[in-house]
């Protein structure tokens, strides 16, 4: 039995970031990279299922990214993934979430897992579409925003709750194999122990090329994408009126605003 977990090394921005010269992305020098927060939960969900299963289950983390993504894959290995796969090729640069999904689907075809998890979205580009598009390329059933899950590896179906807007949930039964996108809060991701971090550092990461997963350059990058970044810019934002002073002065002003509000309230 196997669960494939798609993960992404996301980028947050340093305080004084600058836009790249071509105006189409942020200068990578200002990226602070980490494993996508959602993916921490989907990996944990897979590891929990593995630990609860009667039969052996292999948890495989896969990421599409350049060498720096190894850091996130090592994190996954330290947190309980058995294997890690990274796919990269210069042609993948400028891929949108759909082109990335095509690569993930190609890896899934090769790995033939019983279930595929992805995060609901990534914290950097938040397309909320990679997992579901991967399902489309595989022709698999799929569901988004899963906030609780009952699944035994190898079972023909799984029952989950999807988290809707406004504090509503819906229970759904889905045929497997399936792609589920996992929501924050579905579990409590574990911390990696020092020992497991050390062990993970010694584990190999399989690095695959496009050819290894039977894709061509035209399947990815701009040609394989459904959108293209035209321009990136820092928007003019509304800006709060700052309350200055030391903490006592700031709190005093805050207290005034509260009293004013309470005075006005009926």
């Amino acid at each position, binding site marked *: 039995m196997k669960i494939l977990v798609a993960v992404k090394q996301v980028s947050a921005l340093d305080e004084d970031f600058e836009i790249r010269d071509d105006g189409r992305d942020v200068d990578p020098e200002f990226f602070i990279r980490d494993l996508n927060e959602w993916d921490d939960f989907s990996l944990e969900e897979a590891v929990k299922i593995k630990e609860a299963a009667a039969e052996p289950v292999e948890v495989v983390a896969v990421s599409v990214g350049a060498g720096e993504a190894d850091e996130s894959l090592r994190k996954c290995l330290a947190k309980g993934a058995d294997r890690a796969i990274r796919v990269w090729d210069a042609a993948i640069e400028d891929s949108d979430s759909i082109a990335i999904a095509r690569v993930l689907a190609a890896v899934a075809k090769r790995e033939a897992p019983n279930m595929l998890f992805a995060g609901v979205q990534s914290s950097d580009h938040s397309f909320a579409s990679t997992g579901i598009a991967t399902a489309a390329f595989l022709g698999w059933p799929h569901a988004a925003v899963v906030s609780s899950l009952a699944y035994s590896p190898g079972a023909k179906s799984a029952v989950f709750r999807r988290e809707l807007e406004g504090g509503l949930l819906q229970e759904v*039964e889905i045929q497997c194999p399936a792609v589920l996108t996992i929501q924050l809060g579905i579990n409590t991701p574990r911390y990696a122990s020092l020992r497991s971090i050390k062990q993970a550092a010694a584990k190999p990461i399989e690095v695959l090329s496009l050819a290894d997963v039977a894709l061509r350059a035209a399947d990815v990058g701009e040609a394989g994408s459904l959108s293209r970044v035209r321009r990136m810019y820092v*928007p003019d934002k509304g800006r709060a009126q700052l309350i200055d002073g030391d903490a006592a002065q700031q709190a005093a002003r805050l207290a005034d605003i509260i009293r004013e509000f309470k005075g006005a309230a009926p």
Partner: protein
Amino acid sequence: MSGILVIAEQRRGELRPVSLELLGAAEGLRRTGDEVAVAILAGAPDRFVGALSVAGVDEILTVKVASPEFDADTFESAVGALIAKRSPDVVLVAHSVDSFGFAAALAARLGLGFATDVFNAERIDGELVATRGGYGQKVSIEVDFPGRSTVLLAIRGNVFKAPEQAASPRVTAFDAPQAASRAAGRDFIELSAGDDVDMAAAEFILTIGRGIGEEAKVAQFRELADAIGATLGCSRPIADAGWLPKSRQVGQSGKTASACKLYIAMGVSGAIQHLAGMKHVSTIIAVNSDAEASIFGVAKYGIVGDIFEIAEELRSLF
């Protein structure tokens, strides 16, 4: 290829308000001669005709489907059939949990131009350009769709204005192929967490976020909220960690601070999902140690500082 197809959303017999906002977005993209058609997929779609008969709609497409509630296979098949039949150049859906479940799959399968969480869409030199946020909304990103004759856009909620005037669009029943569904929707469950607080009714809310750092600090803010007469709320990470019940979570998947007039956010960074539940509040005060936190973009007043120190000082004044 012409015209705009809007996919409305319904849940448990109610039209979701974002459906009408999509019509506002459609109006901005309409070119001379373009028709705007809005499709409603439901077990009994006719019952939504009244609610969808608003200005800017030329045609309502009623699509009777077997599944009374959202189902990914059903939507992909029916919306795919609508696109094949009508060849619209733009298809609009809401950036919602339901479309998370089908829009990307449909776009991938049909090779449609595709962007999500779009808060602006316009034509520049005849080309459709959509704007979305990136890197925690710190940048705006314009995307285009070279070579795509149909573009599917998932539109952010609470951005476009719903048309208010009633109209009398023509109504067409659309016969969609019935898909074999690989998932079965069961019951809906209302979130309740043994806490009878009504965030939607609270007029004064003090919200805590990830910045509080540890569970032991919750008590300090609970006590502060009591002292100043505020209802204590939280952002997602606090509820996910179980530090406060889910019923106190403000945001897209939690509660909307509908009646709130004064909102103090302490240690809340301001993720877009949180802002969806509170950015409409007239007086928002953000307290955060990170001067770049996006919460300052929607706040009226901002305090850059240590939330614990501010909380302690504030407590001493009540």
